[in-house]
């Protein structure tokens, strides 16, 4: 679901905002079982390295989208 104030909602922008919300939640929220868990992923930093490009492209888009009207 998506509700936008834009007169002509951009499908791509909606998709990117949803992705940004997804990244925020999956990587930044959720139950953490520290101490109990081999936080695999080789190194947790790798997650953020891998995500950096993704997040920055989404953030840029969000700002562009917000300013495009």
């Amino acid at each position: 679901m998506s509700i936008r104030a834009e007169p002509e909602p951009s499908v791509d922008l909606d998709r990117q905002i949803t992705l940004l919300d997804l990244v925020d939640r999956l990587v930044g929220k959720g139950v953490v079982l520290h101490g109990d868990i081999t936080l695999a992923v080789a190194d947790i930093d790798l997650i953020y390295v891998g995500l950096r490009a993704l997040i920055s492209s989404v953030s840029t888009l969000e700002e562009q989208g917000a300013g495009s009207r």
Partner: protein
Amino acid sequence: VIWLYAVTDHCPDALPNVTGHDSRRLQQTCTAELAGIWSECSREQPARLTEDALWRQETVLEALMDDRTVLPLRFGTVLGDVDELLAVLTRRQDSLRRALDRVRGCVEMGVRARLEPADIPNSPSGGSGTDYLRARAGEHAIAGTLHRRLAAVSSAADKAVRRGAAPVFVGAYLVPEPGLDRFRDAVHELVADHPDLSIACTGPWPPYSFTQEGELAS
């Protein structure tokens, strides 16, 4: 090595017909009260942090959410084996159950809004100090207005203001499922009342932002 997606209520039902990462079969390991949902993964490379992998994880959680209460785990949570999972579920049983009780019957909704009207400078260098302070106070007031309206139709709420090139309000709301229409109505009202804010709403999500990890960590 097993990749964990969620902790749920103990559930005698079969798992939903979706596959996990790498097309692996979803499996569950139950204690008397809880279930851990997982799939096998490679020890060498458990996580492929791609957009597809993030959506795969979300697809699994949404399918689980259809017939049980779900506590999503942080992406990248991997355990050595099922015995390790059973040990965690047993040791954390009370706090995990409390966390499940808090989100039972609820989904999470996300709301973003651009707080900065286009004609107000974003930094002191873009205008006078007075303009800048006025802009910051305005953001604070608008964020409060949005959050109060949405929190009033939610059972729990969380908000932040992110400062990139432009300030963005980011709110998360735990909404009882029967109240979803009421929540959406509130969003539509805000969109109508604040056409300049570029408000976006996403969801329903699994309750990622309301897993109360602080209490779980105790």
